[in-house]
């Protein structure tokens, strides 16, 4: 396995997973379970389901996925700004950080009806929730990153009489880049979960709506539920991989990416 590289390795993993899946589905079917097709449908049955109504699935994917991405970027900007303000003075950080932390103690699902009542547009609620979950992770990550700078580096900047803005631009922000990307890697799939949560609760469209609809209709639509699950899984994976891809290009100097040793 270790010799296999890149795409080949991914293909190998997929092949193994599919093989186990087929075996499981086959055994379940042979065991005489009458709703085996609902408990663990064959992969090709799921594909067939998607192929039967591609427009519906695609539309739902787009609806949830695009809002998740937009919400992610809103959360990124808001979280980045929050952290940037907080790092300017210890007093600001001490006064605000507890509330940022507390914001995550609220059961997110309870926020959906509240925000629906306020924002009315399900679109906006999706955006709000996707950015809400992102915002927290990003704020904490960026804050740590901005504060990760070496004391001597700050003294060096001081000795050059560099202003706050310059220190932020030249030192703090570049030093925070690895932390920001770590935060983004966690936040990207979370934003998707936030968006799906809104679909589940408000039930007007999107991947979450497909899941709810499939559950309500019953075992006959199990393949649709599985399709929605697989799509959100792939989207989450895609988001996380994209973040890593961008990170490598933006900050190749990070220790993890260095080609040189010693």
């Amino acid at each position, binding site marked *: 396995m270790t010799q296999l590289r890149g795409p080949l390795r991914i293909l190998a993993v997929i092949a193994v997973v599919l093989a186990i899946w087929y075996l499981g589905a086959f055994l379940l079917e042979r065991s005489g379970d009458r709703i085996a097709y609902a408990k663990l449908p064959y992969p090709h049955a799921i594909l067939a389901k998607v192929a039967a109504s591609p427009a519906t699935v695609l539309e739902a994917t787009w609806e949830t996925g695009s809002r998740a991405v937009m919400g992610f970027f809103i959360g990124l900007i808001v979280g980045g700004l929050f952290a940037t303000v907080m790092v300017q003075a210890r007093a600001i950080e001490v006064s605000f950080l507890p509330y940022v932390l507390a914001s995550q103690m609220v059961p997110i699902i309870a926020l959906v009806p509240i925000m629906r009542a306020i924002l009315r547009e399900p679109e906006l609620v999706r955006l709000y929730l996707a950015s809400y979950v992102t915002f927290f992770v990003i704020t904490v990550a960026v804050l740590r990153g901005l504060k990760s700078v070496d004391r001597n580096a700050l003294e060096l900047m001081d000795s*050059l*009489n560099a202003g706050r803005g310059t220190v932020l631009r030249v030192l703090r922000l*570049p030093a925070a880049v690895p932390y920001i990307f770590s935060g983004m890697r966690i936040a990207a799939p979370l934003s998707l979960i936030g968006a799906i949560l809104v679909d589940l609760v408000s039930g007007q469209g999107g991947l979450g709506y497909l899941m709810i609809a499939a559950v309500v209709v019953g075992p006959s639509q199990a393949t649709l539920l599985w399709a929605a699950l697989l799509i959100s899984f792939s989207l989450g994976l895609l988001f996380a991989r994209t973040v890593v891809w961008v990170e490598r290009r933006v900050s190749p100097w990070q*220790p993890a990416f260095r080609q040189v040793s010693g």
Partner: protein
Amino acid sequence: MTAEAAEDRVPPVDAAQEAVGHDHSLAHRLGRPIAISVKDVDKVFTGQRPVRALEDVSFEIPVGTFVSLIGPSGCGKSTLLRLVAGLSKPTAGRIEANGIEPREARRRRQFGIVFQSPVLFDWRTVAANIALPLQILGRPRAEIDARVAELAELVGLTEFVNHHPYELSGGMQQRVAIARALSFAPPFLLMDEPFGALDMITRDRMASELLRIWSSTLDTTVMFITHSIPEAILLSDQVVVMSSRPGRVSRIVTIDLPRPRTEEIRESRAFYEYDAELRRLLVEGDASATR
């Protein structure tokens, strides 16, 4: 007290003999106007348990000379360097750099600083690291490029300007830090154990390198902190010996060895005697502190 102490001190006989013909130049250099003056400085770190880091510290550094501060850990050498650099304020006493208060001198960008760790920015290439002060000063691009090329050559890193710091050895990284500190031609170079993290061989070579680099600058005044007695002797015009808890100046020793100094000077009798004298002073200072 400092100037008198330097004059009163009788140099070892051999040193005086060896230094014939160069003695004048050293005296001349030591007779120059005072660049850094530290007078009756106390520094107390307030807190639940106040710590007296420096007590009644006084010494002077003439323009264009190289002065080392040597002493045991915890004698407040680094604290003193921060005070001179205007990065923190003395509790009592007065410090002047070219006649102005250190904080104001810092605002006028009079200090190039080199720390024990190179403090290079990983995301910048060697060239961009050297250019950092000039960029902060807002110098024009063409001037920065020319100056960076000049400095890279001075520290022998021309081939590596497009590398990133992590691709360089520790000694090379520290050379980048020195080039960065000198990039904006500050009148003062403050060095806080710059070679402390290097292996012995690299360390010796870097000391010689530093002498060469320093001699190519125009009258840069150097304040150099070190643990190493031979390093202090090789580099300095004067060595300020400190004792610890609280940090005080126990003696100022003038190193009357000819310049340019080469590796061979380490083998000379005079060098050996300075070494013995400084060692004795450090032990005495340590004993009086723990008594």
